């Protein structure tokens, strides 16, 4: 359906996106994962025709959209990272304004507004000005505006940033429902790997403008087939304990949390008994030592040496 071919964007001396190629098939939910500043927003701005690339091509139904993006725009719904709404207007007034921009009129517009309000769960708040909405409600309306014209492709740029878990779940369920009921194709960007893991059929991982991995979740996680992840939780951590793990030659990488350490080691290495002994010597009380199922976070750590949210 849509293809990015060696897409590049350069701002003066900074390469925001470097030769990124990806494709999205109809009916898929595709995740674009990467930390802040990875180039996700720049990539989707080019994909949605809002930004002209420095190099490469954006193709929709096998036709370049660089010169004439109108066909792509017609089938695209964009959910920006910002709350792109008029906060002085009511939910209904916002939907009506954007609906008219999409040439919806009269009964058709009214019907569509009712439908979207129902989908995003704001029917009974339709007459309230957006200023009075909670963060989660604003995010839901932000999505609703993008759904007014029944787009084939919904591009969502970090749609759950800064909202409570309940609203976040609501949004994730809405995306799932749109995909299953309306066969809507979704490109979902996030730096929350658990959201991408939950929603997406295929994933692209971006870091510093480069595409560093792509495929289904299983394919990506198989990158870690030669390693395993051990999660150590303790009542407290000491520098002596952490430094000893860091200097262990069998340990590939570690992430130090407040009261837990994630350790990546080769699959054949067993450091359980060593860890327990080390904790005893350091005067720490371990609460658990587990081998974790690899996550996308672990993959990212493996590929870049940094956590997604660093």
């Amino acid at each position, binding site marked *: 359906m849509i293809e990015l071919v060696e897409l590049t964007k350069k701002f003066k001396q900074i390469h925001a996106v470097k030769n990124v190629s990806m494709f999205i098939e109809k009916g898929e939910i595709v995740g674009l994962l990467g930390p802040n500043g990875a180039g996700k927003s720049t990539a989707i701005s080019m994909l949605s025709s*809002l*930004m002209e690339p420095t190099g490469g091509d954006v193709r929709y139904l096998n036709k370049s959209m660089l010169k004439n993006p109108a066909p792509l*725009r017609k089938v695209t719904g964009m959910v920006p990272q910002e709350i792109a709404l008029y906060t*002085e207007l009511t939910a209904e007034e916002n939907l009506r304004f*954007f609906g008219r*921009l999409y040439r919806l009129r009269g009964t058709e517009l009214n019907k569509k507004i009712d439908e979207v309000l129902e989908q995003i769960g704001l029917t009974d708040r339709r007459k309230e000005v957006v200023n009075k909405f909670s963060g989660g409600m604003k995010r839901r309306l932000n999505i609703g505006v993008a759904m007014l014209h029944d787009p084939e492709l919904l591009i969502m740029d970090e749609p759950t940033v800064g909202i409570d878990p309940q609203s976040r779940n609501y949004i994730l369920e809405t995306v799932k429902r749109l995909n299953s009921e309306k066969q809507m194709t979704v490109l979902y960007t996030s730096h929350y790997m658990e959201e991408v893991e939950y929603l997406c059929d295929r994933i692209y991982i971006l870091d510093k403008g480069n595409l560093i991995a792509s495929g289904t979740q299983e394919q990506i996680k198989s990158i870690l087939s030669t390693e395993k992840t051990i999660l150590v939780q303790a009542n407290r951590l000491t520098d002596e304990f952490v430094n000893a793990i860091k200097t262990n030659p069998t340990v590939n990488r570690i992430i130090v949390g407040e009261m837990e350490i994630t350790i990546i080691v080769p699959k054949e290495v067993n450091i359980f008994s060593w860890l327990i002994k080390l904790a005893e010597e350091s005067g720490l009380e371990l609460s658990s030592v587990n081998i974790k199922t690899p996550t996308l976070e672990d993959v990212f750590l493996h590929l870049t040496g940094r956590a997604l949210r660093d």
Partner: protein
Amino acid sequence: MTWNIIKKQGLQLLRNPQQLLLLIGLPIILITILGTALSSWMNGENPDIRAKVAFVEHSNEKEQVEQFIDGLKETMPSGELESISGNVENLMVIDTLKNDIFGNEEIQEFVELDITNPSMLNQLKEDNTFTAIIEVPENFTYNMLEKIILDKNVEPSLSVLYNDTHQIGGSIVESIVTQFQEQFTLSVFVNKNELDQSVLQMDEDGIIGEVTTINQKNSITSKDYYSIGMAVMNVLFIAATIGSMALYEKKNLVFDRVILAGVSRWVYFIGVFLSGALFGFMQLMIIYLFAWIAFGVTWPNLLAFLVVTVFFSIAVGGVTVLLTALSYRINSEMITNFFSSIIVTIMAFLGGSFYPIGDSLVVIRTMGNFTPNGAGMSAYLSILRGDGLSEISEHILFLLIFAITTIIVAAFSFPKRGAVK
């Protein structure tokens, strides 16, 4: 589509009470304060206004009177001649004007008379500090007496040259000279018809008179003046307000949504322009409606008033779209903030919103007329004085050229796709 954008802008403005208060409430408050506080000054009751008048006589009046009486000796009966000779002081009309009229204590409070040699005349004309130059030609009094007493067919006339940059002072001097002239004509009539001389007593209140415009048309009150001054100044803020709103649309990516909906950026551009023009027009009408209800500011030529308001609003639309385009280009509110805090103040000063620019330097007045608010203000004041469309056509033309120029500059400045992010 454009109407949808305008309607949305209107809703946003209506839902912002602080902004509404600034756009509508502030000018109304300022008109009330300035119009009331400065009413005495504008209406000429305050002697702080100083008019400097140069008085140039080309010949000695006493000699002219003596020469006239000598000439009568051969033809006039001695009784009548004695009566005229004994009344020499009353025959010296210029002396009366200089000493009795301009020498009057009350007049001296605001008119300074400078009696000057005729050789200085050209120099005086170059000197912008003089409000008026009264020039008495050769043998003026002699000819005047020949006309009054001997009924000769001569038409002596005074030459009064007004400095058109001294609007208020000029009208005061003109009023005094006109009063004197009328009084003198009446005197001749009374003499010829042997009526009671007591009717010729000068009315001192009448000498002060009321302030009228230099061209003797309708007078402008302080409330008229400041209604226009504050309206033309404050309407510029609507341009900055809509410019800021447009920049906010860009920053929070609403503009991206508009573009993705397949709306041309030029439709949006036109929407911003029309919003500025339409809401500017509405703001002006609300302020003038208030001025009419509260202060009785009425327009003698409603068509001319509407034409100026429409063209001025179009110029405001031009400013709006220019501010929007520049703000989009540099992606910052700096432009609109600078415009509303600095540029509007300078334009209001030059345009005459704070005080009558006509009494200042000609260069400032000229500069003022090259601002949209200044041109609008000059046109409005002309209408209030009684002028019609033909007299204000140059201001209307300027407003149109200004609007076209700003729109063209804005169109070239408006960033193209992907130029700014």
